[in-house]
Protein backbone atom coordinates (compact mmCIF):
# COMPACT_ATOMS: atom_id res chain seq x y z
CA UNK A 1 0.00 0.00 0.00
CA UNK A 2 2.86 2.41 0.77
CA UNK A 3 4.08 1.70 -2.77
CA UNK A 4 0.70 2.84 -4.07
CA UNK A 5 0.84 6.02 -1.98
CA UNK A 6 4.30 6.95 -3.20
CA UNK A 7 3.24 6.24 -6.80
CA UNK A 8 0.12 8.38 -6.31
CA UNK A 9 2.21 11.21 -4.85
CA UNK A 10 4.61 10.98 -7.78
CA UNK A 11 1.66 11.07 -10.21
CA UNK A 12 0.23 14.08 -8.38
CA UNK A 13 3.50 15.99 -8.79
CA UNK A 14 4.07 14.97 -12.39
CA UNK A 15 0.42 15.32 -13.35
CA UNK A 16 -0.20 18.77 -11.88
CA UNK A 17 3.14 20.05 -13.18
CA UNK A 18 2.39 18.78 -16.69
CA UNK A 19 -1.14 20.26 -16.74
CA UNK A 20 0.29 23.62 -15.59
CA UNK A 21 3.06 23.42 -18.17
CA UNK A 22 0.67 22.58 -21.01
CA UNK A 23 -1.74 25.39 -20.12
CA UNK A 24 1.13 27.87 -19.65
CA UNK A 25 2.39 26.89 -23.10
CA UNK A 26 -1.14 27.26 -24.52
CA UNK A 27 -1.25 30.78 -23.03
CA UNK A 28 2.22 31.64 -24.32
CA UNK A 29 1.51 30.12 -27.72
CA UNK A 30 -1.85 31.90 -27.83
CA UNK A 31 -0.21 35.26 -27.15
CA UNK A 32 2.37 34.60 -29.87
CA UNK A 33 -0.43 33.67 -32.28
CA UNK A 34 -2.32 36.88 -31.44
CA UNK A 35 0.79 38.94 -32.17
CA UNK A 36 1.53 37.01 -35.38
CA UNK A 37 -2.05 37.30 -36.63
CA UNK A 38 -2.16 41.01 -35.73
CA UNK A 39 1.04 41.53 -37.71
CA UNK A 40 0.43 39.37 -40.78
CA UNK A 41 -3.36 39.32 -41.08
CA UNK A 42 -4.56 42.31 -39.06
CA UNK A 43 -7.94 42.86 -40.73
CA UNK A 44 -10.83 40.49 -41.01
CA UNK A 45 -12.04 40.09 -44.59
CA UNK A 46 -15.29 41.93 -44.82
CA UNK A 47 -17.90 41.24 -47.50
CA UNK A 48 -17.65 43.68 -50.37
CA UNK A 49 -20.11 46.50 -49.95
CA UNK A 50 -22.21 47.68 -52.83
CA UNK A 51 -20.80 51.01 -53.95
CA UNK A 52 -23.12 53.73 -52.78
CA UNK A 53 -23.72 56.94 -54.60
CA UNK A 54 -21.65 59.89 -53.34
CA UNK A 55 -23.62 62.23 -51.14
CA UNK A 56 -23.16 65.10 -53.54
CA UNK A 57 -24.86 63.11 -56.26
CA UNK A 58 -27.93 62.51 -54.10
CA UNK A 59 -28.89 66.16 -53.72
CA UNK A 60 -28.14 69.13 -55.89
CA UNK A 61 -26.54 72.32 -54.63
CA UNK A 62 -29.78 74.24 -54.09
CA UNK A 63 -31.33 71.48 -51.95
CA UNK A 64 -28.15 71.15 -49.88
CA UNK A 65 -28.11 74.91 -49.31
CA UNK A 66 -31.73 74.82 -48.19
CA UNK A 67 -31.02 72.00 -45.73
CA UNK A 68 -28.00 73.86 -44.36
CA UNK A 69 -30.03 77.04 -43.80
CA UNK A 70 -32.86 75.09 -42.12
CA UNK A 71 -30.46 73.37 -39.71
CA UNK A 72 -28.72 76.71 -38.98
CA UNK A 73 -32.03 78.36 -38.20
CA UNK A 74 -33.39 75.56 -36.01
CA UNK A 75 -30.18 75.11 -33.99
CA UNK A 76 -29.48 78.82 -33.67
CA UNK A 77 -26.25 78.54 -35.66
CA UNK A 78 -24.79 75.81 -33.42
CA UNK A 79 -25.54 72.79 -35.61
CA UNK A 80 -24.09 71.90 -39.00
CA UNK A 81 -24.80 69.27 -41.64
CA UNK A 82 -22.14 66.57 -41.90
CA UNK A 83 -23.85 63.95 -43.98
CA UNK A 84 -26.97 63.67 -46.10
CA UNK A 85 -28.33 60.16 -46.52
CA UNK A 86 -31.16 59.13 -48.82
CA UNK A 87 -33.60 56.90 -46.93
Amino acid at each position, binding site marked *: *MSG*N*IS*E*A*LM*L*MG*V*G*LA*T*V*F*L*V*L*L*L*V*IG*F*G*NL*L*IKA*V*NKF*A*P*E*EEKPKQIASKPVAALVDGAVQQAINKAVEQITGGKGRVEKIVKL
Partner: protein
Amino acid sequence: MGDILNRIYEMTAFQAIIDNPGFLVMYALAFVLLYLGIKKQYEPLLLIPIAFGVLIANFPGGGMGVISPDGAGLVHFVKDGQEVARNIYEMSLPEIAHDLGVMNFLYYALIKSGLLPPIIFMGVGALTDFGPMLRNLKLAIFGAGAQFGIFAVLLVAASTGYFSMQQSASLAIIGGADGPTAIFTTIKLAPELLGPIAIAAYSYMALVPVIVPLVVKLTCSKKELSINMKQQDKLYPSNTVIKNERALKIIFPIAVTTLVAIIVPSAVPLVGMLMFGNLIKEVGSSTSRIFDAASNAVMNSATIFLGLCVGATMTVDAFLNLQTIGIVAGGFLAFGFSIFGGIMLVKLFNLFSKKKINPLIGATGLSAVPMASRVANEIALKYDPRNHVLNYCMSSNVSGVIGSAVAAGILIAFLG
Protein backbone atom coordinates in the same frame (compact mmCIF):
# COMPACT_ATOMS: atom_id res chain seq x y z
CA MET B 1 -51.18 -28.98 -18.60
CA GLY B 2 -49.01 -28.65 -15.49
CA ASP B 3 -45.92 -29.27 -17.60
CA ILE B 4 -46.91 -26.52 -20.03
CA LEU B 5 -47.54 -24.07 -17.18
CA ASN B 6 -44.20 -25.02 -15.67
CA ARG B 7 -42.43 -24.35 -18.97
CA ILE B 8 -44.19 -21.01 -19.35
CA TYR B 9 -43.06 -20.08 -15.83
CA GLU B 10 -39.48 -21.12 -16.67
CA MET B 11 -39.64 -18.94 -19.78
CA THR B 12 -40.31 -15.85 -17.69
CA ALA B 13 -37.75 -14.07 -15.50
CA PHE B 14 -39.75 -14.53 -12.27
CA GLN B 15 -37.73 -17.39 -10.77
CA ALA B 16 -34.36 -15.75 -11.48
CA ILE B 17 -35.56 -12.50 -9.90
CA ILE B 18 -36.83 -14.38 -6.82
CA ASP B 19 -33.50 -16.22 -6.58
CA ASN B 20 -31.54 -12.96 -6.74
CA PRO B 21 -33.43 -9.94 -5.29
CA GLY B 22 -30.47 -7.75 -6.34
CA PHE B 23 -32.27 -7.40 -9.66
CA LEU B 24 -35.02 -5.44 -7.89
CA VAL B 25 -32.41 -3.00 -6.57
CA MET B 26 -31.17 -2.50 -10.14
CA TYR B 27 -34.71 -1.85 -11.40
CA ALA B 28 -35.21 0.69 -8.60
CA LEU B 29 -31.94 2.37 -9.58
CA ALA B 30 -33.00 2.45 -13.24
CA PHE B 31 -36.35 4.00 -12.33
CA VAL B 32 -34.71 6.64 -10.12
CA LEU B 33 -32.27 7.56 -12.89
CA LEU B 34 -35.11 7.69 -15.43
CA TYR B 35 -37.04 9.97 -13.07
CA LEU B 36 -34.04 12.25 -12.62
CA GLY B 37 -33.45 12.40 -16.36
CA ILE B 38 -37.07 12.82 -17.49
CA LYS B 39 -38.67 14.81 -14.70
CA LYS B 40 -35.72 16.68 -13.16
CA GLN B 41 -33.91 17.13 -16.50
CA TYR B 42 -30.53 16.05 -15.03
CA GLU B 43 -28.35 15.53 -18.13
CA PRO B 44 -31.31 13.85 -19.89
CA LEU B 45 -29.44 13.16 -23.13
CA LEU B 46 -27.14 10.76 -21.30
CA LEU B 47 -28.93 9.80 -18.13
CA ILE B 48 -32.03 8.47 -19.93
CA PRO B 49 -30.10 6.10 -22.28
CA ILE B 50 -27.89 5.01 -19.34
CA ALA B 51 -30.92 4.33 -17.14
CA PHE B 52 -32.69 2.40 -19.87
CA GLY B 53 -29.49 0.44 -20.50
CA VAL B 54 -29.45 -0.49 -16.78
CA LEU B 55 -33.06 -1.63 -17.02
CA ILE B 56 -32.74 -3.86 -20.09
CA ALA B 57 -29.40 -5.30 -18.95
CA ASN B 58 -30.93 -6.69 -15.76
CA PHE B 59 -33.69 -8.92 -17.07
CA PRO B 60 -32.43 -12.49 -16.60
CA GLY B 61 -32.44 -14.32 -19.92
CA GLY B 62 -32.61 -11.07 -21.93
CA GLY B 63 -28.95 -11.31 -22.87
CA MET B 64 -28.53 -7.52 -22.89
CA GLY B 65 -26.06 -7.19 -20.01
CA VAL B 66 -22.42 -6.60 -20.84
CA ILE B 67 -20.26 -9.57 -19.83
CA SER B 68 -16.90 -8.39 -18.51
CA PRO B 69 -13.86 -10.62 -18.95
CA ASP B 70 -11.96 -11.86 -15.90
CA GLY B 71 -8.30 -11.11 -15.27
CA ALA B 72 -7.23 -13.68 -17.88
CA GLY B 73 -9.55 -12.16 -20.49
CA LEU B 74 -12.02 -15.03 -20.27
CA VAL B 75 -15.78 -14.54 -20.55
CA HIS B 76 -18.11 -17.23 -19.22
CA PHE B 77 -21.43 -17.88 -20.95
CA VAL B 78 -23.88 -20.66 -21.73
CA LYS B 79 -23.92 -22.03 -25.27
CA ASP B 80 -26.10 -24.94 -26.37
CA GLY B 81 -26.84 -25.73 -22.73
CA GLN B 82 -23.18 -25.93 -21.75
CA GLU B 83 -21.05 -23.43 -19.84
CA VAL B 84 -18.28 -22.11 -22.07
CA ALA B 85 -15.23 -19.94 -21.25
CA ARG B 86 -13.56 -18.09 -24.13
CA ASN B 87 -10.95 -15.38 -24.43
CA ILE B 88 -12.86 -12.28 -25.46
CA TYR B 89 -9.86 -10.83 -27.30
CA GLU B 90 -9.72 -13.89 -29.58
CA MET B 91 -13.40 -13.70 -30.51
CA SER B 92 -14.45 -11.94 -33.70
CA LEU B 93 -17.23 -9.35 -33.57
CA PRO B 94 -19.75 -11.64 -35.36
CA GLU B 95 -18.93 -14.35 -32.78
CA ILE B 96 -19.49 -11.86 -29.94
CA ALA B 97 -22.82 -10.82 -31.48
CA HIS B 98 -23.87 -14.46 -31.94
CA ASP B 99 -22.71 -15.88 -28.61
CA LEU B 100 -23.05 -12.90 -26.24
CA GLY B 101 -25.80 -10.82 -27.84
CA VAL B 102 -26.16 -7.51 -29.60
CA MET B 103 -25.36 -5.32 -26.58
CA ASN B 104 -22.00 -7.02 -26.09
CA PHE B 105 -21.34 -6.55 -29.81
CA LEU B 106 -22.01 -2.78 -29.45
CA TYR B 107 -19.98 -2.57 -26.23
CA TYR B 108 -16.87 -4.31 -27.56
CA ALA B 109 -17.04 -2.62 -30.99
CA LEU B 110 -17.83 0.93 -29.87
CA ILE B 111 -16.90 1.33 -26.20
CA LYS B 112 -14.16 -1.13 -25.34
CA SER B 113 -12.38 -0.14 -28.54
CA GLY B 114 -12.33 3.45 -27.21
CA LEU B 115 -14.15 4.77 -30.29
CA LEU B 116 -17.11 6.71 -28.91
CA PRO B 117 -15.57 9.10 -26.32
CA PRO B 118 -13.29 10.78 -28.92
CA ILE B 119 -16.25 10.96 -31.33
CA ILE B 120 -18.26 12.75 -28.66
CA PHE B 121 -15.28 15.02 -27.97
CA MET B 122 -15.34 15.97 -31.66
CA GLY B 123 -18.96 17.05 -31.23
CA VAL B 124 -18.09 18.92 -28.03
CA GLY B 125 -15.32 20.73 -29.91
CA ALA B 126 -17.77 21.66 -32.66
CA LEU B 127 -20.01 23.25 -30.04
CA THR B 128 -17.19 25.04 -28.15
CA ASP B 129 -16.23 28.67 -28.67
CA PHE B 130 -12.62 29.43 -27.75
CA GLY B 131 -13.28 33.17 -28.26
CA PRO B 132 -13.77 34.02 -24.55
CA MET B 133 -10.62 32.07 -23.68
CA LEU B 134 -8.57 33.87 -26.35
CA ARG B 135 -9.86 37.25 -25.19
CA ASN B 136 -8.91 36.45 -21.56
CA LEU B 137 -6.00 34.13 -22.18
CA LYS B 138 -4.28 34.61 -18.80
CA LEU B 139 -7.35 33.32 -16.96
CA ALA B 140 -6.91 29.96 -18.73
CA ILE B 141 -4.28 28.98 -16.17
CA PHE B 142 -7.00 28.53 -13.53
CA GLY B 143 -8.18 25.51 -15.52
CA ALA B 144 -4.99 23.83 -14.26
CA GLY B 145 -5.71 24.54 -10.58
CA ALA B 146 -9.05 22.80 -10.90
CA GLN B 147 -7.36 19.51 -11.84
CA PHE B 148 -6.17 19.25 -8.23
CA GLY B 149 -9.23 17.15 -7.35
CA ILE B 150 -8.19 14.42 -9.79
CA PHE B 151 -4.79 13.90 -8.24
CA ALA B 152 -5.93 14.44 -4.64
CA VAL B 153 -8.57 11.71 -4.94
CA LEU B 154 -6.09 9.45 -6.73
CA LEU B 155 -3.96 9.72 -3.60
CA VAL B 156 -6.92 9.16 -1.25
CA ALA B 157 -8.27 6.17 -3.21
CA ALA B 158 -4.85 4.56 -3.57
CA SER B 159 -4.13 4.98 0.14
CA THR B 160 -7.32 3.11 1.14
CA GLY B 161 -5.89 -0.07 -0.38
CA TYR B 162 -9.37 -0.88 -1.61
CA PHE B 163 -8.74 0.20 -5.19
CA SER B 164 -5.83 -0.69 -7.46
CA MET B 165 -3.85 2.21 -8.93
CA GLN B 166 -5.73 1.87 -12.23
CA GLN B 167 -9.08 1.83 -10.46
CA SER B 168 -8.05 4.81 -8.29
CA ALA B 169 -7.10 6.81 -11.40
CA SER B 170 -10.42 5.96 -13.09
CA LEU B 171 -12.30 7.05 -9.98
CA ALA B 172 -10.22 10.22 -9.61
CA ILE B 173 -10.83 11.38 -13.19
CA ILE B 174 -14.46 12.07 -12.20
CA GLY B 175 -12.94 15.27 -10.72
CA GLY B 176 -12.27 16.44 -14.26
CA ALA B 177 -16.06 16.92 -14.57
CA ASP B 178 -15.96 15.68 -18.12
CA GLY B 179 -18.04 12.60 -19.01
CA PRO B 180 -16.24 11.44 -22.18
CA THR B 181 -12.84 11.92 -20.50
CA ALA B 182 -13.94 9.85 -17.49
CA ILE B 183 -15.29 7.08 -19.75
CA PHE B 184 -12.21 7.08 -22.00
CA THR B 185 -9.84 6.82 -19.03
CA THR B 186 -11.90 4.08 -17.37
CA ILE B 187 -12.07 2.01 -20.57
CA LYS B 188 -8.28 2.15 -20.75
CA LEU B 189 -7.51 1.57 -17.06
CA ALA B 190 -10.39 -0.16 -15.25
CA PRO B 191 -13.20 -1.20 -17.63
CA GLU B 192 -14.85 -3.25 -14.88
CA LEU B 193 -15.80 0.04 -13.16
CA LEU B 194 -17.19 1.74 -16.28
CA GLY B 195 -20.86 1.71 -15.23
CA PRO B 196 -20.63 3.26 -11.75
CA ILE B 197 -17.95 5.75 -12.82
CA ALA B 198 -20.00 6.98 -15.78
CA ILE B 199 -23.10 7.28 -13.60
CA ALA B 200 -21.18 9.17 -10.89
CA ALA B 201 -19.51 11.49 -13.43
CA TYR B 202 -22.74 12.46 -15.18
CA SER B 203 -24.74 12.69 -11.95
CA TYR B 204 -22.26 15.09 -10.37
CA MET B 205 -22.08 17.11 -13.59
CA ALA B 206 -25.84 17.48 -13.35
CA LEU B 207 -25.37 18.59 -9.74
CA VAL B 208 -22.93 21.40 -10.62
CA PRO B 209 -25.59 24.02 -9.66
CA VAL B 210 -25.54 22.52 -6.15
CA ILE B 211 -21.86 21.58 -5.67
CA VAL B 212 -20.24 24.81 -6.98
CA PRO B 213 -22.26 27.16 -4.71
CA LEU B 214 -21.60 24.84 -1.75
CA VAL B 215 -17.80 24.87 -2.15
CA VAL B 216 -17.80 28.61 -2.98
CA LYS B 217 -19.79 29.36 0.19
CA LEU B 218 -17.35 27.36 2.31
CA THR B 219 -14.20 28.94 0.87
CA CYS B 220 -14.88 32.51 -0.34
CA SER B 221 -15.71 35.75 1.45
CA LYS B 222 -18.33 38.27 0.33
CA LYS B 223 -15.54 40.73 -0.51
CA GLU B 224 -13.83 38.23 -2.79
CA LEU B 225 -17.06 37.30 -4.58
CA SER B 226 -17.80 41.00 -5.15
CA ILE B 227 -14.60 41.58 -7.16
CA ASN B 228 -15.87 43.22 -10.35
CA MET B 229 -13.87 41.94 -13.30
CA LYS B 230 -14.83 44.78 -15.66
CA GLN B 231 -13.68 47.36 -13.10
CA GLN B 232 -10.41 45.46 -12.71
CA ASP B 233 -10.02 45.51 -16.50
CA LYS B 234 -10.49 49.29 -16.50
CA LEU B 235 -8.00 49.76 -13.66
CA TYR B 236 -5.42 47.42 -15.21
CA PRO B 237 -6.19 47.25 -18.94
CA SER B 238 -4.76 44.42 -21.00
CA ASN B 239 -2.33 45.39 -23.75
CA THR B 240 -3.43 42.49 -25.94
CA VAL B 241 -5.75 43.44 -28.77
CA ILE B 242 -7.10 40.85 -31.20
CA LYS B 243 -7.40 42.38 -34.66
CA ASN B 244 -8.53 39.29 -36.55
CA GLU B 245 -10.40 36.88 -34.29
CA ARG B 246 -11.56 34.63 -37.12
CA ALA B 247 -8.03 33.86 -38.34
CA LEU B 248 -6.89 33.34 -34.74
CA LYS B 249 -9.73 30.92 -34.01
CA ILE B 250 -8.79 28.85 -37.08
CA ILE B 251 -5.09 28.66 -36.22
CA PHE B 252 -5.62 28.07 -32.47
CA PRO B 253 -7.01 24.47 -32.59
CA ILE B 254 -4.25 23.43 -34.99
CA ALA B 255 -1.58 24.94 -32.73
CA VAL B 256 -2.99 23.47 -29.49
CA THR B 257 -3.28 19.98 -31.02
CA THR B 258 0.34 20.13 -32.16
CA LEU B 259 1.51 21.38 -28.77
CA VAL B 260 -0.39 18.79 -26.71
CA ALA B 261 0.52 15.97 -29.10
CA ILE B 262 4.21 16.66 -28.56
CA ILE B 263 4.03 16.92 -24.76
CA VAL B 264 1.33 14.34 -23.87
CA PRO B 265 0.73 12.08 -26.91
CA SER B 266 -1.68 9.86 -24.95
CA ALA B 267 -4.10 12.81 -24.69
CA VAL B 268 -4.32 13.19 -28.48
CA PRO B 269 -7.43 11.00 -28.98
CA LEU B 270 -9.36 13.44 -26.79
CA VAL B 271 -7.65 16.81 -27.40
CA GLY B 272 -7.07 16.10 -31.11
CA MET B 273 -10.71 15.25 -31.77
CA LEU B 274 -11.89 18.19 -29.62
CA MET B 275 -9.76 20.57 -31.67
CA PHE B 276 -10.73 18.94 -34.98
CA GLY B 277 -14.41 19.49 -34.16
CA ASN B 278 -13.63 23.10 -33.26
CA LEU B 279 -11.62 23.65 -36.45
CA ILE B 280 -14.43 22.56 -38.76
CA LYS B 281 -16.72 24.94 -36.88
CA GLU B 282 -14.37 27.90 -37.20
CA VAL B 283 -13.48 27.39 -40.87
CA GLY B 284 -17.04 28.36 -41.67
CA SER B 285 -19.22 27.84 -44.71
CA SER B 286 -16.80 25.61 -46.63
CA THR B 287 -16.95 22.94 -43.88
CA SER B 288 -20.48 23.63 -42.70
CA ARG B 289 -21.74 20.21 -43.82
CA ILE B 290 -19.23 18.20 -41.77
CA PHE B 291 -19.60 20.65 -38.88
CA ASP B 292 -23.32 20.00 -38.96
CA ALA B 293 -22.73 16.22 -39.00
CA ALA B 294 -20.18 16.35 -36.15
CA SER B 295 -22.32 18.51 -33.90
CA ASN B 296 -25.65 16.83 -34.63
CA ALA B 297 -26.04 13.45 -36.37
CA VAL B 298 -22.69 11.86 -35.41
CA MET B 299 -22.65 13.21 -31.86
CA ASN B 300 -26.26 12.28 -31.20
CA SER B 301 -25.81 8.73 -32.53
CA ALA B 302 -22.64 8.32 -30.45
CA THR B 303 -24.48 9.60 -27.36
CA ILE B 304 -27.27 7.03 -27.77
CA PHE B 305 -24.90 4.06 -28.05
CA LEU B 306 -22.57 5.35 -25.34
CA GLY B 307 -25.45 5.77 -22.89
CA LEU B 308 -27.07 2.41 -23.59
CA CYS B 309 -23.79 0.47 -23.47
CA VAL B 310 -22.58 2.18 -20.29
CA GLY B 311 -25.95 1.37 -18.67
CA ALA B 312 -25.70 -2.22 -19.84
CA THR B 313 -22.38 -2.66 -17.99
CA MET B 314 -24.27 -2.15 -14.72
CA THR B 315 -25.42 -5.68 -14.09
CA VAL B 316 -26.20 -6.97 -10.58
CA ASP B 317 -22.79 -8.57 -10.10
CA ALA B 318 -20.84 -5.60 -11.45
CA PHE B 319 -22.74 -2.88 -9.59
CA LEU B 320 -23.94 -4.10 -6.22
CA ASN B 321 -20.70 -4.06 -4.27
CA LEU B 322 -18.76 -1.83 -1.88
CA GLN B 323 -16.59 -0.43 -4.66
CA THR B 324 -19.64 1.34 -6.11
CA ILE B 325 -20.23 3.13 -2.80
CA GLY B 326 -16.55 4.09 -2.78
CA ILE B 327 -16.91 5.48 -6.32
CA VAL B 328 -19.98 7.56 -5.42
CA ALA B 329 -18.20 9.03 -2.36
CA GLY B 330 -14.85 9.44 -4.12
CA GLY B 331 -16.46 11.10 -7.13
CA PHE B 332 -18.08 13.73 -4.93
CA LEU B 333 -14.77 14.33 -3.18
CA ALA B 334 -12.99 14.69 -6.54
CA PHE B 335 -15.54 17.24 -7.71
CA GLY B 336 -15.30 19.24 -4.49
CA PHE B 337 -11.48 19.20 -4.45
CA SER B 338 -11.36 20.35 -8.09
CA ILE B 339 -13.50 23.42 -7.38
CA PHE B 340 -11.47 24.04 -4.21
CA GLY B 341 -8.18 23.78 -6.15
CA GLY B 342 -9.30 26.35 -8.72
CA ILE B 343 -10.45 28.79 -6.02
CA MET B 344 -7.22 28.42 -4.04
CA LEU B 345 -5.12 29.12 -7.14
CA VAL B 346 -7.03 32.39 -7.68
CA LYS B 347 -6.51 33.33 -4.02
CA LEU B 348 -2.80 32.63 -4.39
CA PHE B 349 -2.69 34.75 -7.55
CA ASN B 350 -4.50 37.62 -5.79
CA LEU B 351 -1.84 37.66 -3.04
CA PHE B 352 0.82 38.66 -5.55
CA SER B 353 -1.12 40.64 -8.16
CA LYS B 354 -2.48 44.19 -8.17
CA LYS B 355 -5.23 43.14 -10.54
CA LYS B 356 -7.63 41.04 -8.47
CA ILE B 357 -9.51 38.06 -9.89
CA ASN B 358 -12.91 36.91 -8.71
CA PRO B 359 -12.43 33.40 -7.19
CA LEU B 360 -15.48 32.20 -9.12
CA ILE B 361 -13.20 32.13 -12.16
CA GLY B 362 -11.12 29.49 -10.39
CA ALA B 363 -14.22 27.52 -9.40
CA THR B 364 -15.14 27.14 -13.07
CA GLY B 365 -11.79 25.59 -13.92
CA LEU B 366 -13.41 22.19 -13.81
CA SER B 367 -14.89 21.35 -17.21
CA ALA B 368 -18.74 21.05 -17.15
CA VAL B 369 -19.01 23.64 -19.94
CA PRO B 370 -20.97 25.93 -19.90
CA MET B 371 -23.06 25.00 -16.85
CA ALA B 372 -20.29 25.82 -14.34
CA SER B 373 -19.84 29.30 -15.87
CA ARG B 374 -23.56 30.01 -15.83
CA VAL B 375 -23.77 28.97 -12.16
CA ALA B 376 -20.73 31.14 -11.27
CA ASN B 377 -22.27 34.10 -13.11
CA GLU B 378 -25.48 33.75 -11.10
CA ILE B 379 -23.48 33.71 -7.84
CA ALA B 380 -21.54 36.84 -8.86
CA LEU B 381 -24.76 38.69 -9.75
CA LYS B 382 -26.15 37.96 -6.28
CA TYR B 383 -23.28 39.94 -4.72
CA ASP B 384 -23.16 42.68 -7.39
CA PRO B 385 -25.96 42.92 -9.97
CA ARG B 386 -23.57 44.60 -12.46
CA ASN B 387 -20.84 41.99 -12.16
CA HIS B 388 -21.27 39.75 -15.21
CA VAL B 389 -18.41 37.23 -15.02
CA LEU B 390 -19.69 34.72 -17.61
CA ASN B 391 -17.15 35.53 -20.31
CA TYR B 392 -14.26 35.47 -17.83
CA CYS B 393 -15.42 32.15 -16.36
CA MET B 394 -15.70 30.63 -19.83
CA SER B 395 -11.95 31.12 -20.23
CA SER B 396 -11.02 28.88 -17.30
CA ASN B 397 -14.01 26.62 -18.00
CA VAL B 398 -12.86 25.84 -21.57
CA SER B 399 -9.21 25.53 -20.54
CA GLY B 400 -10.43 23.04 -17.91
CA VAL B 401 -11.56 20.75 -20.75
CA ILE B 402 -8.02 20.80 -22.15
CA GLY B 403 -6.59 20.40 -18.64
CA SER B 404 -8.69 17.35 -17.75
CA ALA B 405 -7.91 15.70 -21.10
CA VAL B 406 -4.20 16.25 -20.46
CA ALA B 407 -4.57 14.85 -16.91
CA ALA B 408 -6.32 11.79 -18.38
CA GLY B 409 -3.50 11.38 -20.88
CA ILE B 410 -0.93 11.44 -18.08
CA LEU B 411 -2.83 8.82 -16.04
CA ILE B 412 -3.18 6.56 -19.08
CA ALA B 413 0.49 6.98 -20.01
CA PHE B 414 1.69 6.07 -16.50
CA LEU B 415 -0.84 3.42 -15.51
CA GLY B 416 -2.15 2.00 -18.79
